[in-house]
């Protein structure tokens, strides 16, 4: 009896020791862990546990307090005053105050190679009003600013550590988040440890977090099933049905804030004019009408997607209701092609080697053939395909976007004249004017009206045919509770708890 009791106690102790580390399987290895220089989506998953931001987004994409407890726009919307949470310290013990916020914003704006400059472009200066109050002065009103501050641009780094490490800060990042950086072995693991001075310490139930990148979805899942991981991101849609029957595991699905689309070369290079698809809006309309979005979502994503026709999902408050998702209409597509004088237009559809992109291209090819299109598929490794897109060396390109919390992040750089992500080469003076207005208008209702006007123009010109919004698919140990399904696809570790 004694022996059994001892064994049971040892087992319980072992289980407890095990539960203190949260092991997470990532789909890729993150890039540099410096919020100013970071560029990848997957890096943001690690930042979510390591670096708190001035504000955060919740399940409904509302902006909620994090390091800033409250904020106020000036009457002319050209200054944002934020109250900083008192008593917050960085993971090296340094105090987080208004001066530290000023330091970080200025670092984001001035550091060579900074990826945050564009997101903070209208911020002209930062004033420290008192130790816990900071004011961001803007050159013009900028509606997407708060959403940017809910991402890497709002992450505050420890000034002393950042100054000492310079551009090597990413190797030993120090922030004000719940877990502090311990070590990183490239392509193997990133280990974080609970920061005992965290302002919301009561919400932390794990001692350590370990992130391991495993690119193959099958292997990632095998690791979860064998108990090597407690949580994995980006589960393959085809595995979901079996996972939902597994009582030891749980599945979370969240509609992404990004989209899957087909970018069409309408003016990026001379090639746009040599092809009926790029030259004639009627051919593009016929192309869209030949597509069955529900069929695409079913075949490519196993229905783990929400069909859509805009840069934001139909569930978003900024979705332009005046432009609903068009139904498939092959007869109308054929009539449009006839009117355009090309009954059998032929073009090349460029895709990366990612398996879902290739599947998508094949289904599009089959669907549009019924309307008379002859689609040739060209596959290139991602970096190569991106380079071809940038040079305008394509007719149409299967391209997805991970999305930003503010609709501006899904639209401005893609449809503004000469913007960096405008691979379509779309340029329309009226659209540019409306885009500028959408950035300076802070009232959501008025902003929505502007987006409806933009949608009416852009969706008729079709530089991008939006298809659907994928589900972020997560799978985790059924004993893990407190998983928050936030549409940015980033796991929040505060509040996560493992039942014994």
């Amino acid at each position, binding site marked *: 009896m004694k022996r059994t009791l001892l064994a049971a106690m040892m087992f319980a102790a072992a289980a407890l020791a095990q539960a203190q580390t949260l092991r997470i399987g990532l789909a890729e*290895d993150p*890039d*540099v862990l*410096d919020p100013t*220089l*970071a*560029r*990848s*989506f997957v890096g943001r998953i690690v930042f979510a546990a390591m670096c708190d931001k001035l504000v955060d987004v919740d399940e409904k994409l509302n902006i909620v307090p994090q390091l800033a407890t409250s904020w106020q726009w000036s009457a002319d919307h050209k200054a944002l005053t934020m109250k900083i949470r008192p008593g917050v310290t960085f993971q090296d013990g340094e105090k987080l105050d208004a001066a530290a916020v000023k330091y970080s914003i200025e670092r984001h704006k001035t550091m*060579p*190679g*900074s*990826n945050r*400059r*564009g997101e903070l472009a209208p911020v002209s200066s930062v004033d420290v009003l008192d130790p816990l109050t900071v004011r961001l002065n803007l050159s013009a009103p900028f509606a997407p600013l708060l959403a940017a501050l809910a991402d890497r641009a709002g992450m505050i780094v420890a000034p002393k550590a950042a100054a000492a490490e310079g*551009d*090597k800060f*990413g*190797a030993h990042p120090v922030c004000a988040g719940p877990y502090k950086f311990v070590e*990183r*072995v*490239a*392509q*193997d*693991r990133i280990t974080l440890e609970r920061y005992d001075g965290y302002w919301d310490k009561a919400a932390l139930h794990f001692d350590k977090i370990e992130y*391991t*990148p*495993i*690119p*193959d979805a*099958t*292997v990632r899942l*095998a*690791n979860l*099933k*064998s*108990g*090597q991981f407690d949580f994995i991101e980006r589960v393959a849609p085809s595995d979901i049905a079996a996972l939902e029957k597994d009582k030891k595991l749980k599945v979370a699905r969240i509609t992404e804030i990004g989209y899957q689309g087909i970018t069409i070369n309408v003016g990026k290079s001379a090639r746009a004019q040599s092809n009926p698809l790029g030259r004639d809006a009627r051919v593009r309309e016929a192309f869209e009408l030949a597509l069955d979005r529900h069929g695409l979502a079913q075949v490519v994503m196993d229905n783990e997607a929400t069909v859509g026709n805009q840069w934001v999902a139909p569930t978003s408050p900024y979705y332009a209701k005046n432009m609903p998702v068009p139904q498939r209409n092959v007869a109308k597509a054929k009539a449009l092609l006839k009117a355009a004088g090309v009954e059998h237009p032929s073009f090349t559809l460029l895709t990366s080697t990612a398996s879902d992109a290739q599947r998508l291209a094949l289904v599009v090819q089959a669907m549009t053939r019924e309307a008379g299109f002859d689609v040739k598929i060209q596959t*290139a*490794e*991602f*970096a*190569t395909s*991106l*380079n*071809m897109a*940038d040079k305008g060396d394509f007719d149409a390109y299967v391209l997805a*976007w*991970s999305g930003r919390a503010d609709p501006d992040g899904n639209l401005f*750089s893609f449809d503004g004249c000469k913007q*960096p*992500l405008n691979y379509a080469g779309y340029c329309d003076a009226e659209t540019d004017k409306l885009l500028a207005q959408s950035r300076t208008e802070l009232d959501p209702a008025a902003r929505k009206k502007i987006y409806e006007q933009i949608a009416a123009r852009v969706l008729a010109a079709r530089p991008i045919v939006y298809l659907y919004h994928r589900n972020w698919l997560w799978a985790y140990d059924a004993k893990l509770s407190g998983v928050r399904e936030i549409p940015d696809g980033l796991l929040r570790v505060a509040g996560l708890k493992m039942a014994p």
Partner: protein
Amino acid sequence: MFEYLLRRLASIVPTLVFVSMLIFGLQQLLPGDPAKILAGEEQDPSVIAYLHKKLHLDEPLPMRYAYWIGGVLRGDFGESVRSQEPVLDLVLEKLPVTAELALLAMGIALVIGIPAGIVSAVGRGTVWDAAANLFALWGISTPNFWLGILMILLFSVQLGWLPASGYVSPFEDWRANLAAMIMPAFVLGNAIAAVLMRHTRSAMLQVLSSDYVRTARAKGLSEPVVVLRHALRNALTPIITLGALELGTLLSGAVLTEQVFTIPGFGKLIIDSVFNRDYAVVQGVVLVTASAYIALSLLADLAYFAVNPRLRT
């Protein structure tokens, strides 16, 4: 022999210079602007311009080669643009992992492949020969990736005996290290064992039919002595060559196997670096593996001398 060795050593320097030029030059043929892929999702033009300057991308090719090789001669292999870690650190971090995996896999291959080849040659036409041939056919035709996933499903998910993936340093916990390495080492070793078996078999068959083996048997030597001391020794030369080549390949990283088992070795490093256009890392890793290859072929040559006294004159 010494003269030969000196000649071989002297030829290493121009070979390495040529290899370094090849690595550098071929990489420039990769399509795509590395600054664009490194600039990530946002594609901020100022970041792209900054990376161009930082990586000397706008300078002529010979100048860029000079920057790189100058650094290498000073022991500075540059740094990864993606993770900001020095390339030398990355290489030193991955080299022991890959070396351990390669040696374990080679050990498994030798232990299975050579005895199977001998048994199959000696017992030509018997059930043993057929069984060894069947094993070889299976080993050669089974893709590593597939075998790896099946082994994970059986030993990790179903039986729960071994960890599905990951790596633990042998200095931390040698048992956990072996548990993590045994499956990938077997997957890699199995394929090589099959090739080794085929080569051992054909070399042994050739030797076993030669005159001196008949003489040895006529002298009344026991069969094990004839086979192991007289025949095998002469049959070893092609097997050593093959073994060295296979070991060299293993050291350059077993890409798919490392991906499946998440072993953080050269294979994973190099494939990620190529896709991310992280040139400095690719160059550093390829240079190190090319040097390892050259060193191994030199060692193989020395091994010929050891097993074949006729070459020593």
